[in-house]
Structure formats: structure tokens, C-alpha cells
């Protein structure tokens, strides 16, 4: 970028900022509910200051150079905060694109005599701003992914409760897909609970598992074997007809495992094993 343009942009920093703010505030996608105007202004000002001070550098078009790291850092920070605050990608993108428009507008107003220079300078600005928007997007997506990962962790933590349904009988309803990581958590929770409560029967209810493929079945068999090693019996319940079909079609051998169609029948079986009986009380009518 020529020195002249650089100087020009530096002098016109205020104008650019005003124009940019105007653009942003006029934009329909402005989210006043998520960010206050003052905050937006301070963010914008910070970014523009860092950007303008960089324009003179020799590595102007090379985003990997150290000179750009402050700008990228600021932009990354803004993008991540926006991802967490729940901005949409379009809203985040507009933040950078409206800055480009503002700069180009100012250039257009200032360089009126020389179309050639205007074109060259605009192209440079275009290129660098496009790169910056890519950086913004990358960081934005990274921020969103972090949010998703955190939620996944939370879900796995809360979604494997071990319930004590009777003295000596544990039930573990599994809801959602079973993958290796989850099986590990399920297994650990279940075995730990077996040791703590001294239960001799564990019921694994899979009515909430959407599909059982050979891998999921493998995980189930592992859990059952581990429970058996601990000295407890493991019953798999909640097998829907579709799942029974898939299991047989896949040729998975579940014959060594006690399976029941419903949690109720699994419980009834457990009572039988523990020699317990549920009786209906004979109510004697008064009349």
C-alpha cells in the first residue's frame, strides 16, 4: 500500500469508524439484545486502530507475518465472544464486511482524481479484508465447536444415571447412541455403583437407544461381561422388535445374555432370582 493511501486512511480513521458504525447500526441484522451499541463501538474502534497502524507495513498482504498477529488476535477474540453469545454466522460476517465497505467508501471519496490508484488500492484492501473475514469465520466456527463439545461432555455426564430400583437391583437406562467413550462411562458408573451398593443384579435398559449395530452390540456384550466378572448378573431390557430384527440379521449372538423385552419383565425376573414376591393385598370390603 502506498504511503499516501496509508496516511490518508490514518487521517480518516475517525471517518471510517463513523461510517462503519453507521453501516452496522443501519444493518437489519444488528443484535441490540446481544451487544450494546457502546460495546460495539469500543470493539470496532479497537479493531480499526490495530488495522490502520498495520497498513504501512511491508508485509501488508501477508497475513501470516507477526505484524498481523495483534489484529488477528483482536478479531479472533471478537469472533469467539460472538460465537458464545449466540450470534449467527451472517451477523458475525457482516461485522467485518461492513468495515470493508466503510474503508472502500472512504477511499472512493478521497481518491477522486486517479481511478487507476483507486482500483489498485481497493484491490489490496479487498484482498486483506477477505483474508480477515476468513480468519473471523474460522475462529467463529472454532468457538461454536467448543460450545458443542462442552455440551456433549455435559450430556454424557448427566445421561448415565444408575438407579437403585430395589435393594440389590440396579437399573441403568441408556438414552442416545452408544459409542466407545460412552460405553466406558456407562461401564465405570455401573461397576462402581455395584461395588458401592453390593447389588447382585443390574438391568441395562436400552429402550432409548435409537439403533443397535454390531459395534453397539459389542459394547453391550462388554458391559455385560464386565458386570459378570464383578460377580453380578446383568440383564438387557427394552429391546424393541426392530432392534431384535437387526441383531439377528447382523448375526450377533446374544444367547449368553439374559434379555427381556421390557424393564418390567426384567424386574420380575430379578425378583424371581432373588426369591422375592410381589403380592396383591386382598382388601376386605367392610360391607
Amino acid at each position, binding site marked *: 500500500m502506498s504511503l499516501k493511501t496509508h496516511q490518508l486512511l490514518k487521517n480518516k480513521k475517525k471517518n471510517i469508524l463513523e461510517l462503519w458504525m453507521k453501516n452496522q447500526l443501519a444493518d437489519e441484522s444488528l443484535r441490540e439484545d446481544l451487544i450494546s451499541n457502546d460495546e460495539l463501538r469500543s470493539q470496532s474502534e479497537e479493531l480499526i486502530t490495530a488495522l490502520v497502524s498495520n497498513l504501512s507495513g511491508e508485509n501488508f498482504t501477508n497475513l501470516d507475518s507477526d505484524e498481523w498477529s495483534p489484529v488477528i488476535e483482536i478479531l479472533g477474540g471478537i469472533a469467539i465472544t460472538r460465537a458464545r453469545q449466540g450470534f449467527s454466522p451472517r451477523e458475525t460476517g457482516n461485522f467485518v464486511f461492513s468495515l470493508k465497505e466503510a474503508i472502500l467508501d472512504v477511499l472512493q471519496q478521497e481518491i477522486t482524481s486517479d481511478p487507476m490508484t483507486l482500483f489498485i488500492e481497493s484491490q489490496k484492501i479487498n484482498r486483506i479484508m477477505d483474508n480477515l473475514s476468513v480468519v473471523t469465520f474460522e475462529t467463529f466456527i472454532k468457538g461454536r465447536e467448543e460450545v458443542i463439545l462442552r455440551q456433549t461432555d455435559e450430556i454424557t455426564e448427566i445421561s448415565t444415571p444408575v438407579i437403585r430400583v430395589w435393594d440389590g437391583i440396579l437399573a441403568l437406562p441408556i438414552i442416545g447412541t452408544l459409542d466407545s467413550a460412552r460405553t466406558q462411562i456407562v461401564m*465405570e458408573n455401573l461397576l462402581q455403583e455395584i*461395588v458401592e451398593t453390593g447389588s447382585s443384579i443390574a438391568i441395562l435398559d436400552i429402550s432409548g437407544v435409537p439403533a443397535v449395530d454390531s459395534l453397539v452390540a459389542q459394547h453391550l456384550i462388554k458391559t455385560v461381561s*464386565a458386570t459378570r*466378572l464383578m460377580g453380578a448378573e446383568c440383564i438387557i431390557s427394552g429391546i424393541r422388535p426392530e432392534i431384535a430384527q437387526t441383531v439377528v440379521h447382523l448375526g450377533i449372538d446374544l444367547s449368553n445374555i439374559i434379555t427381556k423385552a421390557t424393564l418390567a419383565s426384567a424386574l420380575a425376573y430379578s425378583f424371581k432370582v432373588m426369591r422375592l414376591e410381589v403380592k396383591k393385598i386382598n382388601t376386605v370390603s367392610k360391607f
Partner: protein
Amino acid sequence: MDKIPILRMGAFLLVTIQVDLYDRLALNLEADLVQMVNKTSAKGVLIDISAVSIVDSFMGRIIGNIASMSKILDAETVVVGMQPAVAITLIELGLPLKGVHTALDMEKGMNLLKSMIDETEEEADEDEMSDDLITE
């Protein structure tokens, strides 16, 4: 040289492993135990591994071996008190210890052994009775 004590209790043998087993110790235990089963003509072997926190495939195999050997000598093996981590490790190693009976603790293991012995004795009685019938 460490040695794992084998205690006799009625018709059963009691083994409590209080230390982490290394290979030599496990091999010695296997040999001693089989000798003991033979000598005392025990009906059941109870192995308590509640203090074992580390297990490898060798250890898993030894336990399996002990069970199979005792079975040949007409004694049932019950492993009691396995730690969750040990159970998971054994499963991950692909050693589900088929043929070994398991129980949560010593008491339950003892009950299991007793019930198994009772069953076999009943069967034996029935056999004798049927023999009697035939002779009559």
C-alpha cells in the same frame, strides 16, 4: 520368597490375594493350589482378589487356568471382589473368564459355592436312587 497362603475351611479352600501378583507368584499359586485341591479333595475354591488393583493378560490366564484345573479335580472356583477397573481391563484384554464363577464379596461367594455343592450332591443322590431302583 513371597507365598500366598491357602486356607482350608471345611470342604473349601480360601485364597486371599493381598499383594499385586507378579508372574512367578501367580505360577507358584497355581501349582500350590492344584496340589492343595488334590490333597484335601476340596469341593470349592474361593479366590478373593479385592486387593488386586493391577491385572494383566497373564494374570487373567492364570485365574482361568486355576478354574479349569480345579474343575478337572472336581472343585468349583469362585472369584470374589473384583475391582471395577480390573473387570474393565480384563474385558478390554478380551478375557471374559468363561467358566469362572464370580461373586461380589466373600459372603456371596461362599453362598454360591454352597448352593453349587448342594446341587451336585442332590444330583448324586438322585443318581444313587435311580441306581437303587434299577437294582430293585
